[in-house]
């Protein structure tokens, strides 16, 4: 099985995530798109580990680290979104222009 199958699949998922981040207005939906992007990177890492890794494990461990960091990111991100909702009664990203120059 060619390794480029996995690489192109993860590139496609990453691009879909980029589209979601750029086009969505709801902050929670943007967080969902970021999860898509992190997930596509995991597929890339595991495919490269299977092909080139010294013992095939290194990429899997970095994918585990990415999963842990994604969990931390979602926790803090949702806390921020809930705080913004509490202060402004909206999670619309286009309305969060307070710090815009």
């Amino acid at each position, binding site marked *: 099985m060619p390794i*480029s199958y996995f690489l192109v699949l993860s590139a496609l998922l990453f691009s*879909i995530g980029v589209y979601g981040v*750029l*086009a969505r207005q709801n902050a929670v939906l943007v967080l969902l798109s970021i999860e898509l992007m992190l997930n596509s990177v*995991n597929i890339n890492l595991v495919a490269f580990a299977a092909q080139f890794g010294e013992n095939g494990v290194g990429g899997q461990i970095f994918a585990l680290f990415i999963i842990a960091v994604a969990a*931390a990111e979602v926790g803090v991100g949702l*806390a*921020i979104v*809930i705080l913004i909702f509490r202060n402004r009664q909206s999670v619309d990203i286009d309305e969060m222009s307070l710090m815009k120059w």
Partner: protein
Amino acid sequence: MAEWWQEGAFWLFALIMVFSALRVVTTGNVIHAALYLVGTLLGAAAMFVLLFAEFLAWAQVLVYVGAIVVLMLFGLMLTRAPIGKGKFDNDQRWLAALCAAALFGVTSYILVDAFDGEEISFTRTVGITAEDVGDVIFSVYVLPFEVVSVLLLAALVGAVVIARRDR
């Protein structure tokens, strides 16, 4: 090693993943977006199984599908996202689609150009068990592991402090 069923399973799960990912970013129903994300995440777990990374596949199911998606659903409910149809896309969506398509074109061209014709041999990964993964985590990668645990603690405390009501 590359049997026909491996390739068939790859295409099946790849189609499921791409379809659900597209629905995540285009659907007009926020709850459906979170539930379609489950399809993509389970597809990624299937990809890990195809690459003989079983431990990672189960970690993916437990952490992503079990924890992160539930957290997202809580976030959607706590921010009173309108259930049902709504407008969640901004006006730049065609520009965003163009940008994403350009990114996909460039990255996939580079990747295919660099790794064209290389077959995954699977001889390296076929015998890896959770025991091997644990051995390597606690010997070679023990410092990043500890850093990640401190990061998780900091994120836990930070989330509680940020979202606390009385201040």
